[in-house]
């Protein structure tokens, strides 16, 4: 339970892997939403101030609607994400991985009031830090969680070396480890790569550069680039 992946079994009998989102990225999403809401308020106030008391009444109604229902409407109609969450790549789902519905969204957003206590999401933060799925109180009551919408896998490149089948068959998690190693090749120093590769090939004692190369070759074979 140390990583943030949660496996959810669907009725079809396959596991979905969802990655739960922590307090920092959620606060950032909230901050973006706050900016957007403030922008709307300023625009509304400027426009409605022309209309006198009627405008002021309209302003109060819109203030109420936006303050309480902005997150609900976006979560229900825009695939579980307010603009802030969308920007940070997050979305809200039910505990069983299905998209969030009216009731759950209403519960989690009305209970936001308690999460906000005693000031600036104090209870919410404590609850998130204590809960394995980073749930605030509203999430606990509603049975929802905030997850990453996409695992950021698009457009990763691995070093272009001729593909080569592995010398023996690898289990799925071993395959993943090799591919992840190749994907991280541009963020690791050559020394560190050798060090990591040497763990795999510790029993074969080849010259260091070839071991790294061989892993990259295996990775590109696993990625489906047949030589």
């Amino acid at each position, binding site marked *: 339970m140390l990583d943030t992946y949660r496996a959810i079994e669907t009725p079809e009998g396959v596991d979905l892997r969802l990655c739960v989102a922590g307090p920092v990225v959620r606060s950032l999403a909230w901050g973006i939403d706050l900016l957007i809401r403030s922008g709307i308020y300023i625009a509304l106030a400027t426009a409605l101030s022309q209309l006198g008391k*009627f405008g002021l009444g309209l302003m109060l109604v819109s203030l109420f609607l936006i303050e309480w229902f902005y997150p609900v409407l976006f979560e229900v109609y825009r695939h579980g994400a307010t603009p802030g969450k969308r920007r940070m790549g997050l979305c809200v789902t039910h505990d069983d991985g299905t998209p969030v519905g009216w009731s759950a969204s209403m519960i989690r957003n*009305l209970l936001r009031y308690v999460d906000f206590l005693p000031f600036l999401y104090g209870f919410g933060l404590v609850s998130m830090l204590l809960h394995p799925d980073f749930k605030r109180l509203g999430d606990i009551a509603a049975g929802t969680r905030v997850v990453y919408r996409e695992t950021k896998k698009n457009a990763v490149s691995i070093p272009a070396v001729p593909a080569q089948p592995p010398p023996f068959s690898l289990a799925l998690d071993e395959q993943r480890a090799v591919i992840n190693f190749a994907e991280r090749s541009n963020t690791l120093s050559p020394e560190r790569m050798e060090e990591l590769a040497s763990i795999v090939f510790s029993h074969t004692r080849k010259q260091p550069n070839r071991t790294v190369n061989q892993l990259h070759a295996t990775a590109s074979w696993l990625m489906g680039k047949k030589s």
Partner: protein
Amino acid sequence: MKQQDFEMQHEALWQRMENLLLILNKQRKASASLPAGDAADFPQNYRQICHHLALARERQYATYLIDRLDKLVLDGHQHLYRARGFLLSQVLHFFAAGFPALVRAEARLFWLAFALLYLPTLVMGVAQQYAPQMVYTMLDHATLVSVETMYDPKGAHIGRERQSDSNFLMFGHYIKNNIGISFQTFAGGLLYGLGSIFYLVYNGLFFGAIAGHLTRIGYGTTFFPFVVGHGAFELTAIVLSGVAGLKMGLALLLPGDQTRLAALRDASQISIRIVYGVIVMLLIAAFIEAFWSSSQAIPPAVKYAVGGLLWLGVAAYLLRMGRARAA
């Protein structure tokens, strides 16, 4: 089966699904503009692909293929199981039968919340007649003076100062304040019910202080005709948001044979449905308060009569509606 054969065999289906999901992801609502056959076949194709994913995992095909199928299943799952909007008939049925039945099912909590609101009102109101200074435990002097001028029978404007266009202003004001208060009363229930109890008692005391004070100084003739109409909806709605909050608090305190968290989840599903009803009641209350209660053209006798009917109406609605269906 070789992976390549597997891919060749099913590539067409995956492509179709990917294209469909691309369209669905861009759309706000699942509606008409989908390729005709695809929408109807969607559940079947989705299950097929789930099967492919399970096979691919079991046979340890390459990770890129598993990742691709994984994404297809994840996206498909989101669309197949997505929440459907409310149909108008469902909404109507909820207010015609579901909501009053829900409230009746929580009759004990209703009377508890009722007592938590009205007992403090009564105590505070009566206490004023013997110890007038009690009013200052709830309001400061400046607020009290402004309340007095509002309901002064000799004053030009009863209720709050208003011209015709300020009715809408007050409507907005009531919406923002009253629904905000009832949302807080509901949400406070999450703190083992304490928040709901606090808001019920506090609002009861506050209301009692003002009502008692105005009665004592003889302004009751303007105050009570003003509040009787919308009070039917507003006060009942506050009691009901207390019910919704207390229900959550009670689930945490007495979870029965469930875990506390499971009990809370179940209770909040019911509570939120009560809150839906509360929102509508408060909208009605704000409307009456802004456009009817404040009108000075209407004599107090009419206001009392209409107010009485509204109270009877609310009581009859909660007690009688939807019984036939439930039985």
